[in-house]
């Protein structure tokens, strides 16, 4: 029973990381209506920035995280400006998706060139060793607790931002109808830029937490978590902020439990199987809204 609890907690921790990534995905998808395939690679870039600040410049974890947030925000906004914005309103819906894949490819190979293909061992951002409960039978790592707390704080902050501020309301308006939002005097380009900035900043935070929990860093570190976080966003209902949280947590728990009780090789297959089932049974996800296609 205690070991099950232990696995459940590590599932929650992984799920919280997925949730933070999925929040970035879901905001960008909801507002810009595009799948930012490179989102996972923003995580990887953020982690490399922290790694460089901590190891090469010996600057400490917190400054490293701050620098990473700034870098990722800049990269996210620049990517949107250079690669995605020109393609807004392109005739083929595939154009922007393929471009996003190109950006992902670009970032991975850039990291390969700059940092090399060898695995870097990441110094965890959280140094707290954690709690020991039930006479040492239940050990909760510090990074696990911090991850869960951070994800809840981010969720509340984002919900407040979207529902209470003018910028947040502008995002909701753009998500609903770009043309009408423009007529209401909303600067659509600015709003989408802000969305990318927030999403990319969250990617940096997720990178720090991901690499603290699993401290090996390669240029491909972000790709798989990025795709799984998209699965989480779809599971929760794309475009919905609480949905991303629920989807992320569900996915993390399923992944850890299937790794433990079924097969470690098949856990990815099970996670992707969930995506397929969700899309077939309830394409709008757990909390998504149903939108009818119009001619």
């Amino acid at each position, binding site marked *: 029973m205690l070991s099950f609890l232990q696995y459940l907690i590590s599932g929650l921790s992984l799920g919280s990381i997925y949730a933070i990534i999925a929040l970035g995905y879901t905001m960008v998808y909801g507002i810009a209506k595009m799948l930012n395939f490179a989102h996972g690679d923003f995580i990887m870039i953020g982690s490399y920035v922290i790694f460089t600040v901590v190891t090469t410049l010996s600057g400490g974890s917190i400054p490293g995280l701050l620098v990473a947030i700034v870098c990722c925000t800049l990269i996210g906004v620049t990517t949107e400006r250079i690669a995605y914005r020109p393609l807004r309103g392109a005739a083929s*819906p595939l154009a922007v998706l393929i471009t996003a894949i*190109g950006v992902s490819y*670009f970032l991975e190979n850039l990291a390969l060139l700059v940092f090399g293909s060898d695995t870097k061992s990441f110094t965890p951002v959280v140094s707290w060793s954690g709690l020991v409960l039930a006479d040492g039978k239940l050990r909760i790592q510090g990074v696990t607790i911090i991850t869960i707390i951070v994800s809840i704080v981010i969720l509340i902050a984002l919900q407040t931002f979207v529902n209470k501020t003018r910028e947040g309301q502008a995002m909701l308006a753009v998500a609903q109808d770009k043309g009408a939002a423009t007529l209401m005097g909303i600067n659509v380009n600015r709003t989408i830029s802000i969305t990318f900035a927030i999403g990319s900043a969250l990617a940096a935070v997720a990178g720090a937490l991901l690499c603290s929990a699993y401290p090996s860093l390669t240029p491909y570190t972000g790709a798989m978590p990025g795709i799984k976080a998209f*699965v989480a966003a779809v599971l929760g209902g794309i475009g919905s902020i609480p949905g991303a949280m629920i989807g992320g947590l569900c996915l993390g728990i399923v992944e850890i439990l299937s790794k433990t009780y079924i097969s470690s090789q098949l856990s990815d297959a099970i996670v992707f199987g969930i995506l397929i089932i969700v899309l077939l049974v309830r*394409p709008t996800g757990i909390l998504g809204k149903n939108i009818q296609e119009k001619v």
Partner: protein
Amino acid sequence: MKKGLSKTSLNQLITYGIVIAAYIILQALRSAGMMTSHLAGLLVPMTYYAIAAVALNFCVGILGELSLGHAGFMCVGAFSSAIFSNVFKETLPGGLRFFLAFVIGIAVAALFGFLIGIPVLRLKGDYLAIVTLAFGEIIKNVLNAVYLGKDSKGFHVSMTNSMALGMEEDGKVIINGAMGINGTPRDANFTIAVIVLLIVLFIVQNMINSRDGRAIMAIRDNRIAAESVGINITRYKMLAFTISAAMAGAAGVLFSHNISTLQSTSQYFGYNVSILILVYVVLGGIGSIRGSVIAACILYLLPEMLRSLNKYRMLIYAIVLIAMMIINWAPAAREMRERFFAKFRKEAV
């Protein structure tokens, strides 16, 4: 009308001509000893990447749906044909065995394409891309964990280890989990690969210029309009997707019969391979079958020719890919191009 027809068939002939000419040149170079053995070893891989690129282009350019799971279809084709070849290694003569391996690999890949197509083709755009990626990864992961053996009583399958197969004394392990399939006869060579490429090209090009192909492209251009003129959307989408998967399976058959140990790893069958093939397709021109073949061959051989550029190769591909997408598809770029050509035309008059 007749003139138009001959134009398309001329266009097709040019493609075959390029492939055959390239084949003759490369074979001549090889027999003249002007090719390192390393380079000669790249000829078959080059051809199956070209086949995979044609298959993916049929899906992306003609059907208009982005699949990121074609590596999965290659994987299915590779494994099914390798199992067949291993089982009949002693009992069937080489040529017939390889032909039947093709039939099986293609048929199994087509079956998977059909089965996966049923749920997947109800989706579109981003979702379709991600779900095909998911299916590809599932195929790869499952084949990585499966054990298959054969003895006098028939086949045994296990998901735990080779001991759990519970075989008789004479049993032989065919798929050894993550260790993959060992000892597949190396039946593939450059000539056969090029023949397969030509057959694939023949099928695709004739398909595109047929009634079916026009129906598929009509769905791509406007689904609702196509439906309203009576085109059966589901049927044609399934047809195109299944054919595309079958061709990827053919590439897989060549793959498995050109490698001594077939393993279901990300390096060979992960979604990164699907993305690499997509790079070939985009750089060759989405919808241009000839472009896919040329791009796949050049981009595959290029790093060997320009070793100094090898480090920057992927980075350059990525930049070119992004630039091409923006130049070809951005509304502003299209408008600019149209204005430029309009001016040009006026001057000509």
